[in-house]
């Protein structure tokens, strides 16, 4: 992990961030359940999830959101530089027992403001053909 914060001179609109695939297993969801205190059973109890009409256990939207931002934090070089982050939860990520689920996260620079040294990044998170985050946007302060 580099200590250098990304400089505004190295950023331009249209630039793509290094993408990442997040593998989500049942163990990931149990770990996030404990850390986040969001203990809703739809995230770890298959029988319960099915009883409320879901196809299987689904990931916490906040787990996907919290994991997806890592490509931005790592790109800018300091997680403390992420000053805004928002998303819609458009589709659930279904996490089968055997295979788990893979979410592909990509990001592209949508705007750079030289005055405030801020860059806006549009994120995409896909699980198969499902777009699981909608209008996911982060703003970072560059060096």
């Amino acid at each position: 992990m580099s200590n250098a914060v990304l400089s505004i001179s190295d950023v331009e609109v249209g630039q793509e961030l290094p993408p990442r695939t997040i593998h989500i297993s049942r163990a990931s969801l149990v770990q996030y359940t404990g850390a986040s205190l969001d203990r809703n059973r739809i995230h770890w109890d298959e029988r319960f999830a099915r009883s409320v009409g879901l196809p299987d256990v689904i990931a916490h939207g906040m787990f996907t959101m919290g994991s997806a931002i890592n490509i931005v934090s790592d790109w800018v070089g300091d997680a403390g530089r992420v000053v805004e982050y928002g998303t819609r939860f458009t589709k659930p990520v279904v996490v089968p027992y055997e295979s788990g689920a893979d979410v592909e996260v990509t990001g592209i620079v949508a705007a750079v403001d030289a005055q405030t040294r801020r860059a806006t990044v549009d994120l995409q998170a896909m699980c198969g053909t499902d777009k699981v985050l909608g209008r996911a946007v982060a703003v970072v302060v560059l060096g």
Partner: protein
Amino acid sequence: MAVNVSFTGRTYPPTAPYSVGREKIREFAEAVGAHDVVHIDQVQARARGYRDVIASPTFAVLIAQKCDRQLIEDPEAGIDFSRVVHGEQRFVHHRPITAGDEIVGVLTVDSVKQAGGHAMVTTRSELSTTEGEPVCTATSTLVIRGGE
């Protein structure tokens, strides 16, 4: 029971202070795969100008959810928690949440809308230190699915 539309604009009293601990920051960062050392190593966090380790960008949900719970558990609000789905979440960080912070949240119900049998409630939690320094504004949209 229908969601109470008259709750729009309502503000709740500040929550009890949340003590931000180093180990909770580390635990949360690990759970979301945030490997920046700034969440883990206070020496390196200080070298970057922070007072101590800082939280990953969505950690504030721990405190925002405490704020939201005031509304969800308010019997007059008419919200059936088993029907609540998280629709949208946004954070504006005024400065990073840092180990050692004591944070209180003030919840405001920004809007309550009924649409197609569902209700959409947008809440805003203003998180600040007990000294009054603004830390984060967290906005959530909760969708309450209508009955069948």
